[in-house]
């Protein structure tokens, strides 16, 4: 499965594991909020489009959007984590550890916050054609 392949791929990237260790899990993020559980990454799959079409019809490709929510207790922690995840995902071409073959991954960043809170979140939207 593609999400598992991406998770394995991310956990093999030193720039990512240097920040989160192995704290990468499906949503929701850990309920306990302290420095032993954050920063962390929680992911979800909003869409998996079964068929993609070119102008002359379907070519049998698949498209999945995976959102990696990068949480941190400080703004910069979350931002740096998201940039690290984005850097290793954006433009990735090749075969993931689970055997899935990917076309170039399109990754984009967005951030959110809550006034008065000490938790920040940057989201990395990875659109994978496979």
């Amino acid at each position, binding site marked *: 499965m593609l999400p598992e392949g991406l998770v394995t791929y991310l956990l093999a990237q030193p720039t990512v594991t240097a920040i989160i260790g192995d704290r990468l899990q499906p*949503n*929701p*993020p850990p*309920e306990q*909020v302290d420095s032993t559980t954050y920063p962390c990454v*929680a992911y*979800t799959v*909003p*869409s998996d*489009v079964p068929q*993609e*079409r070119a*102008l002359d019809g379907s070519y049998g490709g698949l*498209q999945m*959007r995976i*959102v990696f*929510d990068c*949480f941190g207790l400080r703004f910069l922690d979350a931002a740096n984590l998201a940039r690290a995840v984005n850097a290793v995902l954006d433009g990735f071409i090749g075969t993931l550890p689970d055997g899935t073959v990917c076309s170039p991954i399109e990754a984009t960043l*967005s951030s*959110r*916050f*809550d*006034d*008065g*809170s*000490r*938790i920040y*979140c940057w*989201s990395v*939207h990875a*659109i994978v054609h496979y």
Partner: protein
Amino acid sequence: MSDEIDLVIDTRELEEALGKLAVRVRGQIMREALQAGGDVMLEALVECAPERTDDAEMPEELFPLPAGLLKEFMTTEVQVPGDSIRSGKGYSQVQKPRVKVGVQATPPVNAPARVGYWQNNGWILTRHASRSNPNGKRGKRGWKAGGQIRPIPGKHFFEKAFDISAQASVDAFLGVLQSRIFDETEGISYPENNSRDVDFG
């Protein structure tokens, strides 16, 4: 803001064909085509939007919406050059044709749009201070209040709706545009060439 979806399509070739039509007809055709594309996306958005948004953990300042109401507030808004739209406290002229699909604006509180934005992107759960919490400051939220905080993940249903409907939406848009241009130019001859020869791919 991701509480609405913008559909932007490169239509230069079609605009050339449209340019041969009267201005009023041109705007009307573009409006109908954008509406057709937006309707496809709207259908997907209504399907993907959460039925219930009255989570127990929704912030107090957000009005809880009855079940299904967020879906009912989903709407489309077509804008073509010549239209006036609200921009800040004033109005501005639309420069490019586009269709917006999202939660209907209901000023001044705009509760459905706010709920839709929070449901889509998630929020950080905080708690107001209380008398039972001596470390908290009354009237403050979040870490100043000393309340528990925890991130609530977003549902990302706008992105899902866009992903699953974008192709069909563009197909619907181009289909209407092509057929309406064909209807309007039928019987008209042009000295240099014929706009009905435009290849729509």
